[in-house]
Every structure is written in structure tokens, then in C-alpha cells.
């Protein structure tokens, strides 16, 4: 075990005094009884209505000592400081009050109505000084060594691992993800679906420590976050934006995305995270949530950059006709803008969601509009190659951002990793998927790859399957050999038991659109009777050509049953909200990306080409929108083919079994790690396997990993 260090801002590099204390606590963590503790740098920051910010340099959270908030100075620096000792003490007191007010809200952390089980101490460390003659609430210490005595003097509180975990989730803002109001289930017997969802919501810790760590740590340069649907990429980016805004309110932040309907989701998430730490709303002049392209009525990264560059933005038909062969119109628009040579840097931080959907030239544009030298540009991009419904090849940073005149990659994650703070990574992979039921995710993968039909794409190696949360008991992938892949429950931990008449997955194949729509409308009615709210139901049309006709008929069928609907494709001008209270959502797969619902209907499955990667990716994306229930429907033989694969996948779940195809003949999804990262990851995975074989639990393994990563 070892002290976990979470460095959340780049001020770290210019703060030798705090670094010295971190070094001291880390090296002496055993003697100081800090083995299970976590030490935050520049976190958390609380902001009140007057926009005053309260933040210590370091916050120690120890199950033995509780909280210790430090401000750190050298005697000589302190002499020049503009703050007096009394002011520092008052500010630490304000911070402690803010922290206490959050902790006390948690029932399990409350001792009495006003007292929590986690004490908050404040320390002003003035190395080489500390001899003061003023009565202060904070402890004033003059040396690193005196920290040990002080910790001992305070005595031990010994929080349980559950209490520590709850305290961490409060401090780190995970509470922002809870439902704003608790679900009320009047009669579990009559509303079995609502009861099941209520249990699921209680169980959800859908923002685990690894995710929070990625969100909070500022790596001080480019970084990539990879993960499948439901691993929390959007949530991480939203929390990152909120956190950067809190710690550096003047920083200009861009959060960009590809799917218009994602805007309100991102805005809500950022607001929720920000409001955990602040009494006011975020300053939206500083945080820009922008669609990549924008439109006539809405600003976008491209159109804003055009304005700043003094270039007229291209309309869609112009971009389409300017596109070279194989280039998409948006890619052409960004390329032409860059060729003008007048793009100006503007943002201090650029966070890109749905990175898999953006063309290379957009990344190059993102590079140009981000302030700083190449390895210091704060660009974080999240992507999921399996959700790439536009059929873009997997691209590495060199391809995305391009090269300089000497042929050197402008963005190289290995190169910029040289200056990472302790415990940080600039290339994170998220294995745990919290959104989907295990069998739904396994079936979505099976259909996405085509393992029970025609395999159109394949992960390149056993290791890549492990990256996305599977185990490969059959060993290395050898062409022509049988392969067995299993998804362990720990990587899809949320589970809803089967409810009579409401199987997790169901399907309907028929001969007419009218019959298909009728089946969906009746099933939706059943879901509503079972206790779901209308907004918890999402209908995705995979059939673009007939989407308008499907939704006209379905909205009519629902309306005749007294059910309202929100057709998100009936708005070409805005970035419409994906979910509206008391309305069933109707969407194309494109607009559904990044969103989710308890019950998902995927209609028009017959329209999907099972021989193409794009077609199978659409199936995968649609299926993985479902938190619990999945319904699939379509017409005739073509739909039957999908249903056959679905049935096989469900029968075999949590396994997938297939014969390894020739990778040269099919599209291989590359893993995208550098050799150095690959070696490090392989060693880590081997280590985990050994620990698991030695009988350690997942929690114990997590602890061991923290130990080893901090030792690095």
C-alpha cells in the first residue's frame, strides 16, 4: 500500500515547496500511517457567491487522521507573500467549512446533525519559520518533520474502507451523478420496472476512482481517453471542464462534440459538477460547449474559428463540392480554413468528445486554436473506435494532428509523457462499462464484429480484447483457431434481474412497417404501465431512408394511446435536448450517440448491411444506448438475419465464440499503443493476473495497483 497522489493542476511544476511536502509524505507514508491515504494537490476548490475561491495547496484524506488541508511556504517566500498569516488562516477556515458542509450531507458520514465522522484539520507549513505568536485555528508548523508529531497528536479515527470510499466520492464530486430527485415507487408489484431501476440507481457508483482520477488530473499536455460505450468518457470530460473552470476561472475552455443532441447533456453535466463546488453557475463565456461544425443558428468550433480568422465559413453544399475524393465535407471545410493560414489560437483547454467521428483536419484545427507549445497544448480527446459510424479508420496522434516541417509528430503521447505529474497518464483506457447489462454489451459486440455472421472487423490481439474488458481463455488469436472470449461480471457490474413479462432483450420480425410500429407502440405502453417514465424510453431508427415515415407513424400511434413523443430529428436548426420529461425520445442512431435510456427500441434493423463495418457499427451503437431493456425489430428476412445473430449471442453470453479470421482480409481495429506503452501495459496485466490467481479481491488488486503506480 502507498499514498495515492492526485495532482490536479499544472501549477505543480512551479510549486517546489508543495512538491517537497508531497515527497516527504510519500516517502514516509508507512511511518506516518498514510498507506491508504490520498493526497490531492490544488483540489478541491470551493467558490462562493462572491466568487471568492477557497482551496488549500494540498489536501490529505487519511482513514487514520481524517482531512488535513495544507498551505505550504518557505520562510523566505512567505516574507514576500501578499497574504498575512491571519488571512491564510481565515481562508483555510473557509475551506474547511465548505468541505464540512458537503461531508455532513452524507448520512453515512454524519456523527450528529452538526458533526461528521471525518475531522478536518488545517495546517500552515512555513519551512524554516513557523515560530508565530498569534492565536490561530490552523496549526502552524516550521518543518516537514514536525508534520509527523502533529499527525500523531491528533489521534486516530480509523475510517472503514466504505467510509473512506464515501468520503472520496463526496470530495471528488461523484455525487453530481445522482438523480436530482429520488425515484418514488408507490407499488413495487404494479411497477416492477421502476422498482428495478430504483435498485439499479442505488447500486450505481458509475463514476469510479479511476474515472475520477482521469477527470481531475491535469496532465499538462495532450491526452487521449479510450473506452467503449458506457465507460464514462463524456462524464469525465464534463468533470474535467468543471474542474479546470473552478481552479482557473480565467482559462478559456472548449468542449466539443459531434452529435448535436449531446450539447444539453454535456451542459447539464458540467453544471452539476461545478455546482458541487460552487454556489454559482459556470461562466459560459469561459466554457464554450460547441458543436464541431456549428450551423446557421448555432455556433461551432469551425464557424467560430472562421470568424476569428476573418474567413467566411462554408455552407454544406460548398463544402461538399470542395471535398476531394474520399474526404468528407466537414473535413474539407476545416482543411480549407487551415489553408488560409490565419487561424488564431484561442483556447487554453480543448476537450473533444466523440473523437472517433471527427476528420483529421478538425484535429489539426483543434491544435491550432489551442494555446501553448506543442507538448504543452492541453488537448484531451475521447474516442471509441467501435462507435465510429462514419467508417473512419483508427487514427494515431501523428495522423490526426500531423507533422512539422521536419516530419516530427506534432502530438506524440510518449514524448509529452516525459513531464507527467506523479500518478498521471496521458493515454487512459477505460475497461469497465457501467451503462449496459452484461448480456446486452456482449451481444452488441458480437453483432458489431459479426462473430456469428460475417466478421467484418476484429480487434487485433488478445491484449486489445483485454483493454475493452474481456478475458481470452483460449489464448493468443491464431488464424483458423477457435477463439473463446468472456466478459467477466466485474467489468459490467450493474445487473437487473429478469422481471416476468419483461425480458432484458426481445425482438419482433414482421412484414409491414405498420405492424412493426404497432408492436413498438404496444410495448412502450407496457413499459409505461410497468413504471417507466416516457423519457426513459428511446426509439432509434436504423433506417435513415424511412426514418421520417417510421416516426410519423410511431408518433401517431403513441399519440392515439395518449403518449407524447420527442422526435429529435424534427429540428434542423437547434441542438435539441435529447430527453424531455414525459416524452418518449425518437432518434436516428446518429443523434442517439452519447445518450442512453433505460429501455431502447431499435427499429428498422433490416436496413443494416451486415457485410459492412458501418452497418454493424450502427447496430452496436444503437444497442449500447440501453441501460437495461433492449428491443429490436425489423422487416422480413433481412431482420431475421440480425435476430439469428442476436439469439446466438445471447445464448452464448457472457462468452463469444468464433473462428479467428484472416486479419489481412478484414478490417482490423488497431490497438494504438506505442511499443513502450504496450510493454508497460502487458506487465501490468500480467501482474493483475498473478494477483487474481493469488486470491486477491478486485479492491485489493486496485490497492496494489495504486501502490505500484505511485512507486513508479
Amino acid at each position, binding site marked *: 500500500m502507498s499514498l495515492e497522489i492526485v495532482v490536479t493542476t499544472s501549477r505543480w511544476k512551479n510549486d517546489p515547496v508543495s512538491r517537497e511536502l508531497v515527497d516527504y509524505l510519500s516517502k514516509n507514508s508507512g511511518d506516518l500511517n498514510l498507506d491508504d491515504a490520498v493526497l490531492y494537490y490544488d483540489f478541491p476548490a470551493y467558490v462562493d457567491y462572491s466568487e471568492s475561491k477557497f482551496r488549500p495547496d494540498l489536501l490529505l484524506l487519511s482513514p487514520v487522521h481524517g482531512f488535513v488541508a495544507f498551505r505550504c511556504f518557505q520562510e523566505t517566500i512567505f516574507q514576500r507573500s501578499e497574504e498575512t498569516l491571519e488571512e491564510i488562516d481565515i481562508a483555510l477556515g473557509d475551506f474547511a467549512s465548505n468541505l464540512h458542509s458537503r461531508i455532513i450531507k452524507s448520512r453515512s458520514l454524519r456523527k450528529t446533525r452538526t458533526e461528521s465522522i471525518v475531522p478536518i484539520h488545517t495546517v500552515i507549513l512555513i519551512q524554516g519559520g513557523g515560530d508565530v505568536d498569534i492565536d490561530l485555528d490552523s496549526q502552524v508548523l516550521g518543518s516537514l518533520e514536525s508534520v509527523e508529531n502533529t499527525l500523531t497528536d491528533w489521534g486516530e479515527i480509523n475510517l472503514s474502507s466504505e467510509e473512506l470510499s464515501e468520503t472520496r466520492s463526496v470530495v471528488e464530486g461523484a455525487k453530481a451523478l445522482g438523480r436530482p430527485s429520488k425515484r418514488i415507487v408507490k407499488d413495487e408489484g404494479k411497477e416492477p420496472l421502476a422498482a428495478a431501476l430504483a435498485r439499479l440507481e442505488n447500486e450505481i457508483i458509475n463514476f469510479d476512482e479511476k474515472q475520477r482520477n482521469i477527470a481531475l488530473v491535469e496532465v499538462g499536455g495532450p491526452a487521449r481517453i479510450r473506452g467503449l460505450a458506457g465507460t464514462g468518457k463524456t462524464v469525465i470530460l464534463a468533470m474535467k471542464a468543471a474542474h479546470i473552470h473552478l481552479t482557473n476561472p480565467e482559462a478559456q475552455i472548449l468542449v466539443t462534440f459531434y452529435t448535436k443532441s449531446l450539447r444539453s447533456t454535456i451542459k447539464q453535466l458540467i453544471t452539476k459538477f461545478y455546482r458541487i463546488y460552487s454556489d454559482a453557475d459556470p461562466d459560459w463565456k469561459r466554457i464554450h460547449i460547441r458543436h464541431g461544425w456549428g*450551423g446557421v443558428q448555432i455556433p461551432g468550433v469551425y464557424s467560430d474559428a472562421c470568424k476569428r480568422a476573418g474567413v467566411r465559413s462554408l455552407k454544406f453544399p460548398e463544402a461538399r463540392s470542395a471535398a476531394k475524393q474520399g474526404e468528407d*465535407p466537414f473535413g474539407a471545410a476545416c482543411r480549407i480554413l487551415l489553408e488560409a493560414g490565419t487561424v488564431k489560437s484561442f483556447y487554453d483547454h480543448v476537450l473533444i468528445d466523440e473523437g472517433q467521428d471527427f476528420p483529421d483536419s478538425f484535429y489539426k484545427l483543434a491544435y491550432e486554436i489551442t494555446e501553448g507549445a506543442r507538448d504543452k497544448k492541453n488537448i484531451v480527446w475521447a474516442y471509441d473506435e467501435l462507435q465510429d459510424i462514419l467508417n473512419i479508420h483508427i487514427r494515431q496522434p501523428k495522423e490526426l494532428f500531423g507533422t512539422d516541417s521536419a516530419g516530427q509528430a506534432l502530438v506524440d503521447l510518449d514524448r509529452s509523457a516525459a513531464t507527467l505529474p506523479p500518478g498521471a497518464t496521458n493515454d487512459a483506457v477505460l475497461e469497465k462499462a457501467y451503462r449496459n447489462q452484461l448480456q446486452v454489451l456482449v451481444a452488441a459486440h458480437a453483432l458489431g464484429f459479426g462473430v456469428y455472421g460475417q466478421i467484418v472487423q476484429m480487434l487485433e490481439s488478445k491484449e486489445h480484447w483485454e483493454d475493452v474488458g474481456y478475458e481470452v481463455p483460449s489464448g493468443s488469436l491464431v488464424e483458423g483457431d477457435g477463439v473463446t472470449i468472456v466478459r467477466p461480471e466485474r467489468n459490467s457490474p450493474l445487473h437487473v434481474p429478469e422481471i416476468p413479462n419483461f425480458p432484458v432483450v426481445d425482438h419482433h420480425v414482421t412484414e409491414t412497417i405498420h405492424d412493426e410500429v404497432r408492436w413498438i407502440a404496444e410495448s412502450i405502453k407496457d413499459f409505461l404501465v410497468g413504471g417507466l417514465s416516457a423519457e426513459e424510453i428511446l426509439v432509434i431508427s436504423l433506417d435513415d431512408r424511412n426514418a421520417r415515415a417510421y416516426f410519423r407513424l410511431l408518433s401517431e400511434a403513441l*399519440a392515439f394511446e395518449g403518449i407524447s413523443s420527442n422526435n429529435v430529428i424534427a429540428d434542423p436548426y437547434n441542438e435539441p435536448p435529447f430527453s424531455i420529461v414525459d416524452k418518449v425520445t425518437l432518434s436516428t442512431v446518429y443523434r442517439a450517440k452519447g445518450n442512453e435510456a433505460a429501455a431502447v427500441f431499435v427499429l428498422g434493423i433490416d436496413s443494416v448491411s451486415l457485410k459492412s463495418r458501418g452497418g454493424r457499427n450502427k447496430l452496436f451503437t444503437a444497442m449500447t444506448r440501453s441501460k437495461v431493456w433492449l428491443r429490436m425489430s425489423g422487416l422480413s428476412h433481412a431482420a431475421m438475419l440480425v435476430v439469428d445473430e442476436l439469439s446466438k449471442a445471447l445464448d452464448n453470453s457472457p462468452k463469444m465464440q468464433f473462428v479467428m479470421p484472416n486479419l489481412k482480409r478484414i478490417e482490423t481495429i488497431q490497438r494504438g499503443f506505442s511499443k513502450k506503452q504496450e510493454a508497460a501495459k502487458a506487465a501490468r496485466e500480467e501482474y493483475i493476473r498473478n494477483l487474481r490467481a493469488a486470491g486477491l479481491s478486485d479492491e485489493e488488486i486496485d490497492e496494489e495497483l495504486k501502490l505500484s503506480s505511485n512507486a513508479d
Partner: protein
Amino acid sequence: MLTNVELRAGISRSWEYLSRSEVGQAFAQPVSFSANAEFRAKSRDTDVPYEELYLLGLRDVQYNMILNDFSFFQFSQDSENEYRFAYYPNPYLGSDEAAVSSIKELHEYVSEGVLDYEDYLRSISEVSVTRYPPMIRYEFSASQYDSEWHPASHLHIGIFADWRWGIAKFLNPKLFTLTVLRHLYPNAWRECQGIPSGDRRVTLDEELTTVKGQCGAVPLDFYSNNERNRLHFT
């Protein structure tokens, strides 16, 4: 006077007109519509231009039904003596012949698989006309009735709130929808193959005559002789 049952039936029948004449895109809400706080506030704010109000209504699904040209209808009722129907035209497409035919062309591209749905929506968003039909609202308000300045049954044409055209009839949702449809979507009206009525099929003109006959006259208590002597709709 309009009961809640009549309102609901009128909304459903209105959708049938729009759907059968192939101008309806989605039937979002089958019951009385209640605007959210933001839409209500912007509706009352005279500094808010029509385009802004329209975009907000579109974004937040502040409508009962939306048409293929992204115009929409609202039908709302507070009581049997207080109700309101509204048609919000799309200010970017209007009824412009060229714009309408370019949308039809785009629909065809989508159904042929030449254009994907997002590109279709983007193409529409870039069409912009300078002239478009006015917003049309019908209101019946017994509580606000003033025989000199505020007819109980009246029509607003355009966004200006204090311009009320008195009407000597009670309108219902069906008559309102048919009137808008006939005036602003004449091609669809002419091409409509008729709609079912009981066990037979009638033309939209026949339906309009029937529906108009169902709308009773506003009694003198709510429409004085003085008002009838002025220019008004009957």
C-alpha cells in the same frame, strides 16, 4: 365553449388532416399543450423577435404537432372558456415555392440513400427565405372579454399582441387547422385524396364545410352588437 373531450378529439382529427394531406411530420402531443416557463416568458417579451421564439418552441418541443416544413401547431386550454390555438410558421422556409420544392428534393435524396439524415438536416438549416407567412393565433377568453377593446373570440395575425380580429364564431381545433392548411398549403390541400369520415371518404373542402357548421355562434354576452357592426369574421 370547448370541452376537454372536444379539444382532444379536435387535436387528433387535426393530425389526421395534416397526415392525410402529407404535410404532417410528427404528432408529438395528443392533449392540451402547456408551455414551459421559458417559452411563456419569451412569448410575452416584446423584445424577443419571432425567430427566437420559433427556435425555442422547436427546440423544446413546445407543440402538439410539427409539419414537414418544421412549422408547428399548439392547442392549449385552461378551461372551457379559456383556450388558444396557434400556428407557428417556419421563418426560414416559409411557404416559398422554391424552398418547399428543394425540401421535397432533399426528402427524395434521403429516401434513395444518396443523402444521410444529418446532411439532410444541415442542408435544410442552410435554406433561408426572406418572406414567410405570419404566425396565426386564435384565442377565446371569457375572462378578458371587453366589448370595446378585447373580443372574447378573436384572431391574431402576426406576432403583435394587441391586434385582435373579432370572430362571431367559436373556433375549434379542426376549423383552425383546416383554415391554416387551406391558406398556407394549397398544393397539399388540392392533392389530398380525401379523409375518412364515418364510413365514407370526404374531400377537405367538404370537411371544412361540415366543421364550420359545427362551430356555433358566440352569444351576445360575449360578442355585442357594437362589435358585430364593425369589421369582423363571421
